[in-house]
């Protein structure tokens, strides 16, 4: 519904006030979602901290190969932020082919991240890790915390890739414009920044030293 449709006609001349945030509604909506989603992730990470502090024999199962995989995943995700910025810049300057190229790269990097993440998960499943099992004999809560936190993040990455595909299709068909790509970019950067907390807290804090 447009702004004018939302405005009640009173017979007087209607003067539209600018948004105090000086941004489009969809972008402000995305910011509100991001704040609430940040709180969701914070709750998961605090819950993980609660379990870790409250459990004896937590253990540090991640060998350097897993940490190396995590570093590579971080590199991939940070690179995808850069390609997303390039896509937004291309849409702002009206370069449709370039925007498609960078959006495609962003989706590709997101997919690679998800594959690497799943590879790590399946390796852990093979070693006997699970939501309620710890093959080292330590705290069983480790699996529940690790798979919940990383699973929530992985869900966000996969959702982001799907959202970018939808936005790219709409942009090519002319249904969506620069602001849609910018708003999707905000979400993508947020998912990237959440990983900056998930990686040190779930991988580095549990590295075998």
């Amino acid at each position, binding site marked *: 519904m447009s702004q004018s449709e939302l405005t009640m006609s009173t017979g007087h001349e209607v003067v539209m006030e600018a948004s105090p*945030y000086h*941004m489009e509604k969809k972008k402000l909506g995305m910011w509100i979602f991001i704040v609430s989603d940040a709180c969701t992730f914070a709750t998961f990470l*605090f819950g993980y901290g609660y379990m870790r502090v*409250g459990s004896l024999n937590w253990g540090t199962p991640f060998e350097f190969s897993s940490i190396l995989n995590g570093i590579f995943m971080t590199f991939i995700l940070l690179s995808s932020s850069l390609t997303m910025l390039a896509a937004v810049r291309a849409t702002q300057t009206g370069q449709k082919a370039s925007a498609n190229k960078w959006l495609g790269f962003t989706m590709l990097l997101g997919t690679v991240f998800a594959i690497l993440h799943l590879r790590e998960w399946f390796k852990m499943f093979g070693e006997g890790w699970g939501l309620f099992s710890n093959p080292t004999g330590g705290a069983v809560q480790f699996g529940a915390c690790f798979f919940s936190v990383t699973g929530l993040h992985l869900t966000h990455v996969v959702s982001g890739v799907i959202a970018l595909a939808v936005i790219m299709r709409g942009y090519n068909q002319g249904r969506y*414009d620069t*602001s849609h790509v910018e708003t999707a970019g905000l979400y993508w*950067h947020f998912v990237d*920044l959440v990983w*900056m907390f998930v990686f040190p807290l779930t991988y580095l*804090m549990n590295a075998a030293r």
Partner: protein
Amino acid sequence: MSKEGEAAMSSNQEPSMGSYAGIVIGLMVIVGFEVVLTYQHLSVRRLLFALLCLASLEAFVGVMYLMHVKYENRLLFWTIYPATLFVLVMLNYIWPDAYRMARMSLGK
């Protein structure tokens, strides 16, 4: 305000792609520093404190530059930061109970 006007308002003064690349490389360097710190045999508390400080720095830089809060209206900054910080501070109520669980596990 027209869409074009709003878009122009939110996209002016943005850094170049080279600056963005510099910011992303800076974030990668911080991640590398985190990994180095992990293998310095620090106590768990010190390591946690250091990693949280570095992660918060990364998040602040990311929100300000990659998510453009620095270039948006100042009101956005004052809307999102206090609200998020309030929630983060309030979540700390769980720690006394976590330490209670740890003490119970030790049989103290």
